[in-house]
């Protein structure tokens, strides 16, 4: 049981809102350092730094760049601690430590020994979504650690000062099809850090799990699956899902045909968040395996295929599940629920209790009560054709029958596509505006399910897809940066972008929102109005997530990655002239 848990690298602050109305409210924001993937454990990607504001951001200039030399999808973000920037490169996942006092100079490089076989086991690019920083590992020498997972299922802890390996733990074989592309996540329990990781490979029929390791030694503290019996999943008498549809014994097994849940996907390859008020570790699970929904139909009862496409809340110390909300039961459309569930409060809403903002691949923006998983608001944030809405009483989506899929039959015009209304790129929340900022995609698909054989180490998918731009793409955009009111489920403003996969967003106290695009634009916009205040164009895609921090001179910086493009699919506008993928590179900006 956690007696006291403090929030790493973030602080509860009382802020005065800008604009005509002054309000007092609590929020979580990063400060001079960035020591967890989202800046805060709540996942807000909000910074209290305000040297850079909507008044001066247009003067930002590039201070330095650093190339990792590795081609691959740069889907993560750097860490910053103790005057050092830490960058995890794409596979083979070198870790670079860069000096901020001598900007861009390399302090050290850690090169893990990795299994090359992992390279083509990852369905969707050899991505790495970032490291986490541990200052209380409680190991023998008690040094600060940078901890991250490599594609080939290893977790490494590296001495943050000198790059020496402190420990590494192997969490599986690539021969099964399993990889690890997600971020490490560190929470503190009574002065000792715990590192949380998840696995990837639902497209390979990998069975999803979440694992907690002792940050000081790498020893496994707990591991639970996301499919199977209650014992497998870590469900006991304290498990209290809000909705009746999510209650019952062994649903992680009984909602599947036979033992298909053992190759059932529901992996965890994206962001974790932490609700300190309720002591809950929150994450979403991937889609069920295989994509062929007909193979997952259960002749004996429910075909929900739990706990795939589900938001799960666990006790971070014991791993026991406290609640779960299955967002898309019996998923037909590859709607992972791996989007982050950002923890925050909004004054006057939900009686001031913490809420979660979750923007699902299925195209609906959810506002949930963090303690119980009850859905308070669920509205489409992109064009949606597979369902007409979400019933707030039952928690069930209202599925459109013509959009369900079947073997050998082409289900047409399914929106959003399997790339999601939003994918791995994270949203941000600003307590200045009480808005979420969501990087959205506008694509649709025709999907034909195919029978598929399970062959270990090969894709267990069973699908033929074609993509097309979503409705009204000329005005809505192929991608879009959406400012979203979680209390009403409405867009306050939006910026249409040419391409999907708008990058991960940063919001700051300076009334700014930063993001990048696949066609190479780095933008800063007014968080209240959406006015574009800065637009820098690169000839390489921006596919990572923007962060901010203070440099050695005490001045604020902003940093992001350019690199190999994330999945760009056919049916989109052609790439602009001079657009060329390049090795993953960090760009750091500051005011003159």
């Amino acid at each position, binding site marked *: 049981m956690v007696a006291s848990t403090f929030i790493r690298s973030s602080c509860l602050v009382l802020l005065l809102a800008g604009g005509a109305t002054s309000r007092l409210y609590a929020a979580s924001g990063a400060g001079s350092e960035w020591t967890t993937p989202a800046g805060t454990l709540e996942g807000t990607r909000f910074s209290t730094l305000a040297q850079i504001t909507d008044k001066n951001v247009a003067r930002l200039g590039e201070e330095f760049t650093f190339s990792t030399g590795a081609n691959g999808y740069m889907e993560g973000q750097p860490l910053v601690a103790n005057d050092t920037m830490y960058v995890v490169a794409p596979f083979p996942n070198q870790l670079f430590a860069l000096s901020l006092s001598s900007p861009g100079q390399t302090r050290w490089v850690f090169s893990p020994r990795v299994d*090359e*076989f*992992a*390279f*083509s*086991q*990852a*369905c*969707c*690019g*050899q991505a790495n979504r970032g490291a986490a920083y541990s200052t209380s590992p409680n190991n023998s020498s008690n040094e600060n650690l940078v901890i991250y997972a490599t594609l080939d299922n290893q977790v490494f802890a590296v001495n943050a000062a000198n790059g020496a390996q402190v420990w590494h733990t192997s969490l599986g074989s*690539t*021969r099964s099809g399993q990889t690890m592309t997600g971020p490490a996540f560190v929470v503190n329990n009574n002065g000792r850090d715990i590192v949380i990781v998840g696995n990837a490979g639902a*497209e390979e029929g990998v069975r999803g799990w979440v694992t907690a390791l002792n940050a000081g030694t790498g020893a496994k503290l707990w591991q639970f699956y996301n499919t199977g019996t209650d014992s497998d999943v870590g469900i006991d008498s304290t498990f209290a899902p809000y909705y009746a549809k999510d209650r019952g014994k062994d649903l992680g097994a009984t909602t599947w045909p036979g033992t298909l849940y053992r190759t059932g996907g529901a992996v965890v390859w994206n962001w974790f968040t932490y609700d300190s008020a309720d002591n809950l570790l929150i994450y979403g699970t991937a889609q069920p395996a295989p994509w062929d929904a007909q193979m997952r139909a259960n002749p004996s009862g429910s075909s929900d295929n739990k706990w795939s496409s589900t938001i799960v809340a666990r006790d971070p110390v014991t791993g026991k599940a406290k609640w779960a909300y299955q967002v898309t039961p019996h998923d037909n459309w590859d709607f992972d629920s791996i989007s982050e569930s950002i923890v925050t409060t909004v004054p006057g809403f939900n009686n001031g209790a913490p809420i979660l903002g979750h923007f699902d691949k299925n195209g609906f923006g959810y506002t949930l009560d963090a303690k119980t998983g009850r859905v308070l608001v669920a509205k489409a944030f992109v064009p949606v054709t597979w369902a007409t809405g979400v019933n707030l009483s039952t928690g069930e989506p209202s599925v459109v029958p013509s959009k369900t899929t079947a*073997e*050998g039959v082409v289900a047409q015009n399914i929106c959003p596509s399997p790339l999601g209304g939003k994918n791995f790129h994270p949203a941000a929340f600003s307590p200045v505006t009480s808005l979420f900022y969501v990087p959205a995609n506008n694509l649709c698909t025709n999907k*034909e399910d*195919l*029978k*598929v*054989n399970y*062959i*270990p*180490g*090969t*894709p*267990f*998918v069973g699908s*033929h897809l074609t993509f097309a731009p979503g409705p009204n793409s000329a005005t809505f955009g192929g991608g879009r940066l959406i400012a979203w009111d979680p209390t009403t489920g409405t867009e306050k403003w939006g910026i249409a972008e040419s391409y999907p996969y708008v990058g991960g967003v940063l919001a700051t106290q300076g009334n700014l929102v930063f993001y990048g695009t696949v066609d190479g634009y780095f933008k800063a916009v007014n968080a209240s109005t959406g006015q574009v205040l800065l637009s820098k164009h690169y000839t390489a895609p921006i596919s990572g997530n923007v962060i901010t921090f203070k440099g050695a001179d005490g001045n604020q910086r902003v940093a992001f990655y350019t690199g190999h493009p994330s*999945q760009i699919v056919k049916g989109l506008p052609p790439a602009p002239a001079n657009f060329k993928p390049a090795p993953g590179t960090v760009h750091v900006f500051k005011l003159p």
Partner: protein
Amino acid sequence: MIMMRTKLAALAFVILPLAMTARAQQLTPAEEGRRLYLSNNCYSCHGDVGAGSAYGAPALRFDGVEFGDLSEAIREGEDRGMPPFPALNNSTAINNLYAYFHSMGSSSEPVFYRWWDALPLAGVKPPARLYVLATDKRLRLTVH
């Protein structure tokens, strides 16, 4: 002689439909190769029609496939993420896959997806190849 030719012609008239029926139950090597390509999940890594995918596996459609390389890859796998395929490690499967890869881009490239059907319909262009059993060379027909 004319009567013989008539009889032979009549015989061909009977045999041709039978041959067509028999032939229609068989796929070509390339078509069987397509079936293997789908049923063994090759398409997920190498692309629906061999044009590559986000897995980073070679785009066989453009890269070309040497018979020896294909045999070795099936037998031993590849270092960067392809497992061996013992179920395909036989001459029939390898020959069929080879035929499929070398049909890519041609008018005879099979493009069906319902690999589990006894006779996948899409991509099987009528008429199927006809082989007429006859002793008279004038009646030995091969239709492509």
